């Protein structure tokens, strides 16, 4: 309690207040006021986050317990925040990027009615609040609260334009897919409670570290796997990734904040947070690596043939998330966090840039109808280009450092992983520059009307772009590899306390590869990437890919038909089953049995009353017969 970090509750408190004020007062407040409250709340959080970061950097970490959230039986779950290196870093990213996107939104969403504008900011603030809970939570349950909370906000924001049925369907899809993951997460939590009677990080990790007998090898394996399944839902990995591209139905800043920069990285955060557990479960790590690389590859291939500017970015996000999981799977937790950070910068930048484009195009998202925009939107063009370069991994930009670190880790684990990873990186470079070239280069292919309206976006939009562009460039320098400059990997140093040093686990990539090997790998990838970039640029600037895809391209354009397969394998059978149960089992069989009893009674009533024939003779006869029976049984059978 004495620790100043007890004040950490301020960080989520501001967005919560912002949510309440905007939510309740959305009808009475003016748009600018809403914007100020919304952004201001995040700014305040950001400021507190910086302060916290400084405290942590100064070596002050703390677990702040506020009140007993749930206490039942032997189980006590406090409402606690854990402030350490990892969470403080994430706090910065969330509030920082979040603030920029809020600012961006004030302009981007300006055309909405005040009421919806307020609603938008309320949701956005609520999202930031939930995300902060997620990363600050001092135990798995608080994390889960945030975890579901961000899912909820994502749902609300995807379906923000609720008049469009398909948007709402996308929102539902996102929420339900997340729920599948959440269930696994929950079961993992139950497992922990079952074995350890606690869910607090400190207690769990120390139990693991001390090799508590309550938690066997299998337990760790199952728990880590379940947590990972949870992560696949939130972070859009195979098989639960399909919601993310659909989530692009939401307003573009939302895509930037939630579906690129922050929420989708929650899975990575969770695994990094539990890295001690994972380090003890090599099988899980392998699974993660494979799923990660597969997702990266799959999403990258799909992105090749997408024509919706946001869809491309969405698949790119999925692909990059796969990358991060690859990093986790190879044990390079810090590389993953590093990539989370850099990705947050450049992907947010790209999304916001695309938002700027869409804004300028009057809502048009199809890149085939764009082209040559660099003439009209200078700032957007440049910042977007920076983003593309960063994501492609051009040396000097942030993406280069993080991606390189991941690939190095993958190489150390297995050259195949490296090979596929590199191939994916090339694909990334290719589709990003296909996107860039188609959009900004060449000549304009839209309608005359649209051309007339093309203009650079206002400052509220360009300012975040610029800031993010700068971050995309310099963001990588917190993690300059050892082989380039000794001791420059400040991120490594900073995060080292939260990463378990388990002997048999895969440690830092740099400690195992010689510097020359690293130079070679880096060189190889750089050369190839640059080549691809140049190829794509030239190819699509001249002749944009506007015709319908055919052959294999069509499969890619249709996203490998995964949605269709899911629909056929899960959704439709479920609906059919529902119909079947309702019509064939519930009504005729179960209810039928119940009613059947009633009918049987009725039927027997109708039959029995025929016994009452009205004839005295038959009455007496029946009486005599029953007497006879009783006598006979009494005397001859029941002796």
């Amino acid at each position: 309690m004495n620790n100043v970090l007890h004040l950490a509750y301020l960080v989520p408190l501001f967005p919560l207040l912002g949510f309440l004020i905007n939510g309740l007062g959305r009808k009475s407040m003016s748009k600018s006021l809403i914007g100020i409250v919304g952004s201001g709340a995040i700014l305040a959080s950001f400021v507190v986050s910086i302060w916290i970061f400084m405290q942590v950097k100064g070596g002050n970490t703390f677990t702040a317990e506020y009140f007993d959230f749930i206490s039942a039986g032997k189980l006590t779950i406090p409402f606690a925040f854990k402030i350490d290196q990892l969470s403080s870093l994430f706090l910065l990213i969330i509030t920082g990027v979040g603030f920029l996107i809020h600012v961006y939104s004030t302009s981007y969403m300006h055309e909405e009615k005040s009421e919806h504008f307020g609603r938008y900011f309320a949701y956005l603030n609520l999202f930031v609040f939930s995300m902060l809970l997620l990363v600050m939570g001092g135990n798995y349950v608080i994390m889960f609260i945030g975890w579901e909370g961000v899912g909820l906000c994502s749902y609300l924001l995807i379906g923000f334009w609720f008049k469009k049925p398909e948007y709402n369907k996308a929102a539902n899809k996102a929420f339900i897919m997340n729920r599948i993951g959440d269930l696994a997460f929950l079961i993992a939590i139950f497992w922990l409670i079952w074995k350890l009677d606690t869910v607090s990080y400190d207690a769990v990790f120390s139990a693991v570290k001390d090799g508590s007998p309550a938690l066997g090898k299998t337990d760790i394996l199952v728990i880590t796997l379940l947590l990972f399944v949870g992560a696949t839902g939130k972070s859009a990995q195979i098989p639960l990734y399909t919601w993310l591209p659909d989530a692009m139905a939401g307003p573009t800043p939302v895509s930037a904040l939630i579906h690129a920069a922050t929420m989708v990285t929650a899975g990575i955060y969770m695994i990094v947070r539990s890295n001690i557990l994972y380090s003890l479960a090599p099988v899980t790590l392998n699974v993660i690596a494979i799923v990660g690389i597969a997702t990266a590859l799959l999403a990258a291939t799909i992105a090749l043939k997408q024509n919706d500017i946001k869809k491309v970015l969405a698949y790119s996000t999925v692909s990059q998330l796969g990358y991060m999981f690859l990093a986790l799977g190879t044990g390079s937790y810090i590389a993953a966090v590093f990539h989370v950070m850099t990705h947050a910068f450049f992907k947010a930048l790209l999304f916001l840039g695309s938002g700027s484009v869409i804004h300028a195009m009057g809502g048009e998202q199809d890149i085939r109808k764009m082209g040559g925009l660099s003439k009209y939107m200078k700032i957007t063009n440049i910042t977007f280009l920076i983003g593309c370069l960063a994501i492609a991994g051009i040396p000097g930009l942030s993406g280069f450092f993080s991606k390189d670190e991941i690939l190095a880790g993958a190489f150390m684990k297995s050259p195949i992983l490296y090979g596929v990873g590199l191939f994916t990186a090339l694909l990334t470079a290719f589709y990003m520059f296909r996107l860039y070239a188609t959009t900004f280069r060449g000549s304009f292919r839209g309608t005359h009307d649209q051309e007339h309206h093309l203009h650079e976006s206002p400052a509220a939009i360009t300012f975040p772009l610029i800031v993010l562009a700068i971050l995309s460039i310099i963001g990588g320098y917190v993690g300059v590899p050892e082989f380039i400059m000794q001791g420059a990997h400040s991120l490594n140093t900073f995060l080292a306390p939260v990463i378990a040093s388990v002997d048999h686990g895969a440690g830092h990539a740099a400690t195992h590869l010689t510097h020359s090997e690293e130079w070679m790998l880096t060189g190889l990838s750089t050369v190839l990437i640059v080549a691809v970039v140049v190829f794509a640029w030239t190819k699509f600037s001249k002749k944009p890919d506007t015709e319908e895809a055919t052959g294999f391209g069509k499969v890619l354009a249709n996203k490998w038909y995964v949605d269709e397969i899911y629909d056929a394998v899960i959704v439709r059978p479920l609906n059919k089953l529902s119909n079947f149960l309702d019509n064939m089992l519930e009504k005729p069989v179960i209810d039928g049995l119940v009613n059947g009893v009633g009918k049987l009674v009725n039927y027997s009533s109708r039959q029995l009353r025929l016994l009452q024939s009205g004839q005295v003779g038959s009455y007496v006869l029946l009486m005599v017969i029953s007497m006879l029976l009783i006598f006979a049984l009494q005397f001859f059978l029941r002796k």
Partner: protein
Amino acid sequence: MIAVLLILIPLLTGLAAFFFRNEKAARSWALFSSVLTLAVSILGLTVLKQAKYLSHQCEWMQGLGSSFSVSLDGMGQILCLLTAVSYPIIFLSTWHSSYKKANNFFALMLLAQAGLMGVFLAMDALLFYFFWELALIPVYFLCSQWGGERRIQVTFKFFIYTFVGSVLMLIGILFVYTHTADHSFAIDSFYKANLPFGSQHWLFWLFFVAFAIKMPIFPLHTWQPDAYEQSPTATTMVLSGIMVKMGVLGLLRWLLPVLPVASYSYGDTVSRLAIIGMIYASIIAIRQDDIKRLIAYSSIAHIGLMCLTIFSENKVGLQGVMVQMFNHGVNIIGLWIMVELIERQFGTRKMSELGGLAQKAPAMVIFFVIIALANIALPLTNAFVGEFLMFTGVFTSTVTKYNILFTVLAGLCIILAAVYTLNMIRKIFFGEANALTSTAMDLRLNEKIALSAIVGLIIWMGVYPKPMLDLTNEISDSILKISDVQHLLKK
């Protein structure tokens, strides 16, 4: 004293309500009475919580070994509070629904409340049975008189169905009674009854069927969707919000501790039924078009979880069940209020005929979404606390080998719940408004008050459930202690 008052106030005011001639007066009288009950209930939770205020015993049918013994234990507190809280909310939210012969309507509602309170408070098996039936009769009349088109058959089916269950229970009670040492119906004698293991087995089913019908548990649930669909919504609220808790309470108070051995040996069987029911109901809910039916099936799924948890005989779980009884009641009443609003405005409950309400009625959609999300146990809503604890209970259960399987299967319902709940929200509120819904009006003040109360409870219980959990601490311990089979078998 508190306990007696909780029964007497609704009983007497209910009887008095028959004599009102004016609808408005009857309505206000009912509201007044329910608020009074609520006040008494809160009094029992706060100021007068010493044992002497909470229980009362006086002679009644002493020749039979029965006495008028009522007491508020932790579980009783929770359920009485639920009943007491629900009624003002119900009356407020249906302030504008008009009923023919309103005086009778409100009188019967209050009588039902008296019966419910009695069930939750009775500490004597015979008294319990009395109230059990007594709660049913007013509901029968309410549904048959003011219900939907098929109300008469449906209510009748419901009535006979539950009646069958309860008379079977009566036999069970009688049988246990003959085995009590002091020939008494008192709950303590029941707990101490020296029942041969052999007869516990069939006795178990006698009791269980009664409670299972009430809750309801698959496959004894078919009365429920029909009954909910056809009842007037105010009654549906009572039925689903409070009345189903009678079954849960029955399991907790009258089955588990009375027949511990049989509960232990049939635990798995019952759990399987509960799980089948949960999944089954959730799947069926997906394709329902009528909102009431959808909610009805969702309720079956939720109650199934409670049943499952009860038979995992685990403290965390039991506490979860008790808390969840309250939370489920609050949530589902909230949902029904919404249904009532929709039905009253548009005259339909078919989701396919609705849509786009969000534009016209933003306040409504907010409340609805919050309540619906609570219904699917989103964290920081009340149901999360309950379901989390219940799942924990099931998972950490030591009485079954299948704890993991049970949890996973039951967990599927979390996903399915999201599917149908979100679909419902989408179909009702989102999309473009159609001819029917474009004339929609938003909430009125009374409805806002009622719904705010519900949302307030949802959030409060979701963020700070400690007070409620503390209430359940002692009672769950004592239930588990009595029904501890290992201990019994050792003896």
